[in-house]
């Protein structure tokens, strides 16, 4: 079971949960920008969330099955069809040998994911299949590449996704450099509506706002110190970047706060122009929020449902909203 790549967007890479343990050698974790999407794909195909998938930034491609293949589509919704027939996002599907899956542009959010039954089985490097382009590990997927996989997943299942594709409130905790910013600046930071700027990749995402930047005291004399994904780093001009899985491991620009891991899928999926606000929570609140997120991940396999149901089996049919989300059949 292999998918052959016939067309591909410019920023598609193989990703999994990333590699831990090389921070001391200057190598950040990498891994999927939207970690929740990996768990959703795994639930849909009935496999491990450790499986690698194709991460598609903004734009997908065209993929041909060389044999009977099972796939799932999660993360930022994109236009998708198999041999010209539209297929549902956040669902698992079967492809016969020779069938072509076409994935277009993102409709909402930033990163879509193509999962294959058994997981994409590319070479493991330092414990992970995740590409880390800034570290020159792996490559962007190219036309002619093959995405090998060995297993078969369950198909015809769907999952209602957690809506995280249009920005919103990101919960943050104070970190060791937060106190370099005075109270007035921190207050203004939490009261500001930010907009995701055009500069974004897997290293970080720029945020724009009206008014003056957010500078720290003695900003230029700070010793380079450890960076963690989710850190909100202020550049020299005081404009924030949220740092993502391929961020550097140390840096001299001060960080005002750190986005909670459970809010990082929402942060990474924020599309250009969407609004973001920050809300400080205590470490105790953060632990509770993260615990709820982790519990939700473990419940995902129980939340999948058949894609097609006989209306006779649906007791509350009239409570369903059957119109919204329809698109023109002639588009």
């Amino acid at each position, binding site marked *: 079971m292999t998918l052959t790549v016939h067309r591909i967007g410019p920023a598609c890479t193989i990703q999994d949960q990333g590699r*831990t*343990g*090389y*921070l*001391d*050698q*200057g*190598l950040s974790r990498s891994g999927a920008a939207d970690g929740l999407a990996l768990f959703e794909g795994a639930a849909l195909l009935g496999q491990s969330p450790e499986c690698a998938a194709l991460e598609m930034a903004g734009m997908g491609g065209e993929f041909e099955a060389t044999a009977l293949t099972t796939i799932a589509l999660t993360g930022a919704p994109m236009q998708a069809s198999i041999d010209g027939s539209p297929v549902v996002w956040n669902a698992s599907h079967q492809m016969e040998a020779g069938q072509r899956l076409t994935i277009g542009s993102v409709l909402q959010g930033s990163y879509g994911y193509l999962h294959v039954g058994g997981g994409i089985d590319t070479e493991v*490097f*330092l414990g992970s299949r995740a590409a880390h382009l*800034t*570290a*020159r*590990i792996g490559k962007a997927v190219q036309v002619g590449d093959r995405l090998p996989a060995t297993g078969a997943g369950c198909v015809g299942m769907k999952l209602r996704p957690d809506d995280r594709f249009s920005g919103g409130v990101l919960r943050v*905790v*104070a*970190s*060791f450099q937060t106190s370099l910013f005075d109270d007035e600046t921190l207050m203004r930071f939490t009261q500001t509506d930010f907009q995701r700027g055009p500069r974004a990749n897997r290293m970080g995402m720029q945020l724009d706002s009206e008014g003056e930047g957010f500078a720290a005291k003695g900003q230029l004399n700070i*010793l*380079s*110190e*450890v960076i*963690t994904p*989710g*850190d909100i780093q202020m550049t020299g001009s005081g404009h924030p970047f949220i740092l993502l899985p391929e961020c*550097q*491991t*140390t*840096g001299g620009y001060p960080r005002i706060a*750190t986005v*909670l*891991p459970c809010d990082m899928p929402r942060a990474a999926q924020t599309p250009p122009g969407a609004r973001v606000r920050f809300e400080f929570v205590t*470490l105790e609140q*953060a*632990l509770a929020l*993260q*615990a709820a997120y*982790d519990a939700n991940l473990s419940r995902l396999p129980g939340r999948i449902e058949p894609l097609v149901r006989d209306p006779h089996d649906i007791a509350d049919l009239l409570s369903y909203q059957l119109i919204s989300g329809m698109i023109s059949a002639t588009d």
Partner: protein
Amino acid sequence: MTHVLNFPLVRTVGFDGLLVTFADTMTEASNRAALAFRSAIEKLELSGVLETSASLASAYIRFDPTRLPHTDVDDQVMQLLDQRDWYRAPLPDGRRLMQVPTVYGTDLAPQLDEAAAAAGLSAADAIERLSQTRVRVLTIGFAPGQPYLGPLGPEFNIPRLKELTPMVPEGALVLAISQFVLFSGPTPTGWRHMGQTAFRCFRPEMAQSFALNPGDEMQFVPVSRDELEGIRATCTDGSGGATCTEIPA
């Protein structure tokens, strides 16, 4: 002890980290303390610790707070801090000296002259001093395998450039604030590019992907441009023609 009273300083890093900082500047003692403390934390093998690292003057611990609560890590760190004077800790065992063939200046490393001028030296004097200094890997960071090396003499405490140099190649030796960085990949930089080597810090295709460890020492031995080209043509192990010797404990 000469360090400021409020160090070591223990602070949280985001949701799941703790940072133990031994000084707010890079000094010989604070760097040794950071390396030794990080290694002592590793030896505790605490269940729930995900990874650790040492930066110029701090040790970092990342952990899973659901398995290892913040208060437990705090307690362990405090106990360990009390066990000894970390500023007098020895350097790690198994250190090595790498002597790396280096072209100083020329069009391969075009900012030698201005680096020398900023240090108040002639280019020849700067080359002599820099090439005779054995520097230590103070920390590895920013990019994979990439060392921060020092300390260099106080005359080399020159500021970073205001304007970034758009791109310097892998193996570039750059200088600022009495430190070298030896770049592990092509990168823009505000440090002055005054030497060029064929040494590869990150060798993903080899069994041992990372060339250096914190505490290792390096010396950048002047060679001609022709010699470096010769090394590039014949040397396939990523060492750039460097010799490697164990440093006795």
